[in-house]
């Protein structure tokens, strides 16, 4: 198959093995001399371990703990605050204390019940609200940033303002619910430990292992198994599991498998940070914005993890797609004694967009503007500064995308129709809402240059097949296919002759983690360049290798301390329009129509892009009204899929979407990032649609039936 237009879809590389179920995910793997591991976890939220009493272990069963760790006892992420095995203090319910290993899982589970641990319990911080009250206390604030217009200037503007609007907005947890639960296997060999499993970031894991095992780079090897969904949930979390199995394998000299069942996965793995966003906006008489202050609080959970980077992205997106005069923002990650929160598709941006779209929507109502018209007044344009004093360099097509979507969805007609008909229907109310959003592609700031330093490699064999040697994971998003297409097209080679074997750190250089909507844009561009290089020196029938290294295009340099500069090299954009019907008796929401227009530079495969749109939007919409996870006294309350409620096929409707071309010079064939963008607009659009239907305002997501009913009662009470 040769490729005329890069966007034309091709069969996915891994289709056959997936459709037949014969592609082995980690839980399908069995190796010789393999034992299982189960983790003994803290039942309390905060306290000191006084003593541990083990049951008599049958032969072949062993306990592995902190004393078996050769290196420092923490999982190498950013800060050194996450123990591999807690050895004195425990900081959240579910924190691993030690591991029991042995052949039979049933025996391990019954041994688990017999372990007795005495704790000295201490007063825990359970909620974000408690943490906000105590944010000045030692150890509570894990990261903080502040930037923008000076508060003195804003105070002066506020003095002359017609009114000042303050809103507080809350977002909840979101759980990834990748269909394949987390799993990791350490294969024990005399001279190396091979860690294999479900993961997004091979070198994060490798570096964590080198630290934990205190070993050389050649003593550990990381291999990605087919990965059954990631969504960020397999970004940093698998590093901890990898340390568990590798330490255990070294201790017992056997291969050790650790696979979570769904309830363990839901309770102990990272989630999207719950957030509180405070807005304070000065308006003039006509309802125009004079200034805006935003404070963002993220619930980090018990360890820092990646939270500070999540906060950075939340803050950078705190003004949405708008050019707001005199904007100031401050953010905090606060520690609570709850399960650590981490990466999730969007990485801080979904909270910020839900908040700012909600707030701007509410401001528009104050001035009796149509929300979309009001938003358009503030839409950023090419050449405008970003809130961090960077620049929106490239053409912005959002106006065209809005116009197109207004026509496709008949927005104005529908809105008028709903307004006319809603009073006639006592029980069912219809509404339409919009969201405008962007996503900064790639790592924040200078991360690519300073931390990642990606390298890619192409290997050509004698039979003139070319293999991609990179450390990026296909977790379902389709990079085996899209990246292979880029190389095939550049080399003018049939797509079938380009191979992308499961990454193995023994074979692949560090091309960076599979995160941050960077893979297509950054790694894809490196591959495009590598392929050009290979083509120039192509010799048929000969083994050849080429490397290509990341080169940073200097813009306005990013300074993390002052929070200024170009936060991202490029941005992808989106517009959503959503129609809902609200049942005022039950509070149930029915999606009626969903529209999306996107601009991601250039689409590398139309079908894969549509998959990203539909799947991302389903998650984003559900984040707004369906998926609810809570923690009570430090304990996650939803331990099963049905308790939590991710969408089924019955909850979703067909999505009408279109993608606009706007090639980006530093992306392969003009492509930018796409994976995270598609989630971001869902929640704010669904909230706006529910508000339109009920002619009310909400200050939180998810807007569950309970929230709707409560709001209807309150409205009733106000009337009466």
């Amino acid at each position, binding site marked *: 198959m040769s490729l005329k237009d890069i966007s034309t*879809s091709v069969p996915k590389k891994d289709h056959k093995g997936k459709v037949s179920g014969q592609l082995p995910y980690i839980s399908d793997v069995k190796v010789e001399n393999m034992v299982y591991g189960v983790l003994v976890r803290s039942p309390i939220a905060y306290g000191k371990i006084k003593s541990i009493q083990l049951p008599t272990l049958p032969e072949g069963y062993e306990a592995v703990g902190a004393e078996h760790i050769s290196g420092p006892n923490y999982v190498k992420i950013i800060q050194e605050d996450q123990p591999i095995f807690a050895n004195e203090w425990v900081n959240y319910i579910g924190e691993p204390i030690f591991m029991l290993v042995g052949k039979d899982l049933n025996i391990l589970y019954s041994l688990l019940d017999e372990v007795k641990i005495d704790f000295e319990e201490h007063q825990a911080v359970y909620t974000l609200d408690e943490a906000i009250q105590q944010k000045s206390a030692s150890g509570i604030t894990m990261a903080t940033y502040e930037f923008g217009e000076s508060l003195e200037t804003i105070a002066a503007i506020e003095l002359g303002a017609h009114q000042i609007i303050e809103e507080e907005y809350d977002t909840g947890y979101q759980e990834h619910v990748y269909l394949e639960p987390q799993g990791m296997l350490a294969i024990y060999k005399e001279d190396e430990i091979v860690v294999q499993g479900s993961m997004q970031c091979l070198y994060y894991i490798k570096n964590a292992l080198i630290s934990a095992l205190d070993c050389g780079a050649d003593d550990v090897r990381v291999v990605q198994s087919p990965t059954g969904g990631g969504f960020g949930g397999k970004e940093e979390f698998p590093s901890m599991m990898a340390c568990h199995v590798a330490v255990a394998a070294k201790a017992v000299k056997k291969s050790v498998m650790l696979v979570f069942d769904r309830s363990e996965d839901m309770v102990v793995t990272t989630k999207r940070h719950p957030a509180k966003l405070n807005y304070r906006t000065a308006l003039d008489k006509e309802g125009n914005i004079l200034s805006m202050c935003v404070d963002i609080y993220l619930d980090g959970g018990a360890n820092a993890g990646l939270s500070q980077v999540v906060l950075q992205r939340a803050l950078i997106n705190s003004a949405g797609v708008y050019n707001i005069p005199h904007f100031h923002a401050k953010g905090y990650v606060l520690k609570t004694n709850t399960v650590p929160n981490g990466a999730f598709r969007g990485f801080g941006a979904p909270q910020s967009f839900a908040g700012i779209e909600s707030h701007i929507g509410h401001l528009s109502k104050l001035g009796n503007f149509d929300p979309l018209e009001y938003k358009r007044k503030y839409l950023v344009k090419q050449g405008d500064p970003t809130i961090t004093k960077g620049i929106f360099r490239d053409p912005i097509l959002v106006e065209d995308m809005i116009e197109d979507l207004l026509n496709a969805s008949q927005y104005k007609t529908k809105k008028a129709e709903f307004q006319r008909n809603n009073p006639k229907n006592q029980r069912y109310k219809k509404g339409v809402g919009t969201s405008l959003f962007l996503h900064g592609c790639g790592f924040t700031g200078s991360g690519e240059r300073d931390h990642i330093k990606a390298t890619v490699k192409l290997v050509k064999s004698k039979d003139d097949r070319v293999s991609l040697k990179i450390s990026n994971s296909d977790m379902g998003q389709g990079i085996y296919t899209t990246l292979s297409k880029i190389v095939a097209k550049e080399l003018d080679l049939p797509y079938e002759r380009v191979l992308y074997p499961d990454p193995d750190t023994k074979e692949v250089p560090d091309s960076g983690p599979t995160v941050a909507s960077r893979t297509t844009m950054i790694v894809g561009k490196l591959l495009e360049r590598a392929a050009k290089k290979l083509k120039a020196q192509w010799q048929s029938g000969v083994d050849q290798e080429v490397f290509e290294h990341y080169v940073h295009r200097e813009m306005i340099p990013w300074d993390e301390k002052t929070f200024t500069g170009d936060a991202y090299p490029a941005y992808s954009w989106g517009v959503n329009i959503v129609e809902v019907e609200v049942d005022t008796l039950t509070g149930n929401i029915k999606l009626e129509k969903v529209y999306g227009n996107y601009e991601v530079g250039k689409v590398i495969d139309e*079908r894969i892009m549509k998959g990203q749109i539909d799947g*991302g939007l389903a998650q984003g919409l559900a984040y707004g009204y369906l998926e609810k996870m809570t923690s009570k006294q430090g304990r996650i309350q939803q331990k*099963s899929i049905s308790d939590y409620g991710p969408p089924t096929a019955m909850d979703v409707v067909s999505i009408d979407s279109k993608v606009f071309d706007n090639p980006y010079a530093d992306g392969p064939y003009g492509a930018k990032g796409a994976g995270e963008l598609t989630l971001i607009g869902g929640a704010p659009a669904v909230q706006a649609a529910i508000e339109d239907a009920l002619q009310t305002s909400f200050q939180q997501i998810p807007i569950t039936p309970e929230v709707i009913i409560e709001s209807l009662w309150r409205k009733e009470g106000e009337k009466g």
Partner: protein
Amino acid sequence: MIKFTLNGRIVETDAPPTARLLDLIRDEFELIGTKEGCGEGECGACSVFVNNLLQNSCLIPIGAIAGADIQTIEGIMETEQFKLLDESYSNAGGVQCGYCIPGMIMASAALLSNNPHPSEAEIRDGISGNLCRCTGYNMIVDAINLAAKKGDGLWQKK
């Protein structure tokens, strides 16, 4: 000793009657196409046919299947129906991470065998017991629609 038919072959097991059919299929008979997603009958990744009915194998104790006819994805892989679903899922882009897909294929086959020309609502209902977190379902719905259209005659009940 429990005796039953697995993918057309009569088999026996010494596993205790309380063992889950899912574990038996995966561990003793080493058929990996049936996946575990939740272990509570909520996600459908472990879907199999028990006497031609779609069931979650994680909820079935093997004591309950003595004499039953069990089919897993491996048992239908050579059929014309599977080949059509395979092609339709590929053309419609129904597969992302793939973990739900064998179960989804089983549910698709069950649906089309009972209702060769389902409406969109019937398709959504037919796969509502199968969770997918990647696709948002629409391209899977398209795939089943495609298989229904192309498979004229193929799905008629025998």
